[in-house]
């Protein structure tokens, strides 16, 4: 929403006139509209066809984008559900074991470069034990997701 800006008398009058002109144009019959466009130097048939073609093109693009967004949204929901349903780890792992588990995950071919990037972005070896726990949980969730995606692909 735009923030309203107080109008001067001239701007107010122009707004009222523009409003009336909108109504006038929208009340024109097709024939009247065509005649006015011709007077402006346009070919109404050509312009009408351009309008339809542009709209069809944009609607098709929007359809494609919506499908992609819906698919991505479904994947995200599934990943969140998997993360939420993961059992909580029993007890804390010592730092050495945490680092070893993360190292294994980073070398897991199913996760590829995603694991190393996630580990590095979250602080790498500088991370606290708590942060390492979180990183490991996320890497395990990623591994689960990779497995689920592989299953889906095989079913198809």
């Amino acid at each position, binding site marked *: *929403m*735009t923030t*309203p*800006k*107080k*109008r*001067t*008398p*001239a701007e*107010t*009058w122009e*707004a*009222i*006139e*523009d*409003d*009336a*002109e*909108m*109504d*006038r*144009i*929208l*009340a*024109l019959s*097709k024939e009247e*509209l*065509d005649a*006015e*466009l011709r007077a*402006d*130097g*346009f070919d*109404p048939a050509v*312009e*009408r*066809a*351009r*309008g*339809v073609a*542009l*709209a*069809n093109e*944009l*609607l098709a*693009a*929007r359809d494609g984008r*919506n499908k992609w967004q819906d698919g991505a949204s479904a994947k995200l929901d599934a990943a969140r559900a998997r993360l939420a349903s993961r059992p909580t780890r029993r007890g804390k792992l010592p730092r050495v074991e945490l680092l070893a588990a993360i190292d294994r995950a980073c070398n897991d071919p199913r996760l590829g470069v995603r694991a190393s990037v996630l580990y590095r972005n979250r602080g790498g070896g500088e991370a606290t034990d708590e942060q390492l726990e979180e990183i490991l949980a996320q890497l395990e969730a990623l591994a689960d997701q990779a497995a689920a995606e592989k299953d889906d692909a095989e079913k198809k």
Partner: protein
Amino acid sequence: MSTPPPPDRAAVLAFLRKQEWGDLRLELLRFAMPRCKSRELAEDLVQDAIIKVMTGDSSFDPSQHPSVARYMMGAIKFALADERKSARARKTVALSRGRSDDDDVREGDHLQATNAFSEDVAVKVDLFTRRITELRGRLARDAVALALLDLTIAGVDTPAERAAATGYTFEAIEAARRRMQHHAAAVAREISGDDPLDADDERRAEQAERGDQAEQEGEVA
């Protein structure tokens, strides 16, 4: 004023699918042409308005703006105002950079032109101020139309914002808008200057007013 919730994507798309885009393009071009210096600019503004609505890169929501054509015409007006602002800024920069000693010789001419310009502006300010005052007087007994005039002055233009600000229904606001146009046309004739609303608008406004008289009672939502 509270921000409305984001529009339902599927509802917006369904609404857009139902539109006659060929006719809409023509209506937008007709609106843009007299306001633009060139056909190219008019076509660009129309194209941009359509693309923004169709790609979702605008705030268009059919529940807030019942007419997509009016919404896009409004967008064209805003875009044109931006275009004019940019052009003025470019001109100012060019003038300040291009100033030379010879300009001092022309300073007298420049001042004369500036004074003439100021007088012209003063005349216009006076004309439109008198028109607004007269219009306000004519609407004195029409509370909805008067509220609408105040909202127009305040720059509140969308039907939903107007309905929210006044508590009147969309229909009541629409009817009041036509009554205000009718009186504005009469005022423009009475206090003459350029561009009074044309006779067709006047005729339609009169028809609308006849139909709206019955609506004036009980139009509070």
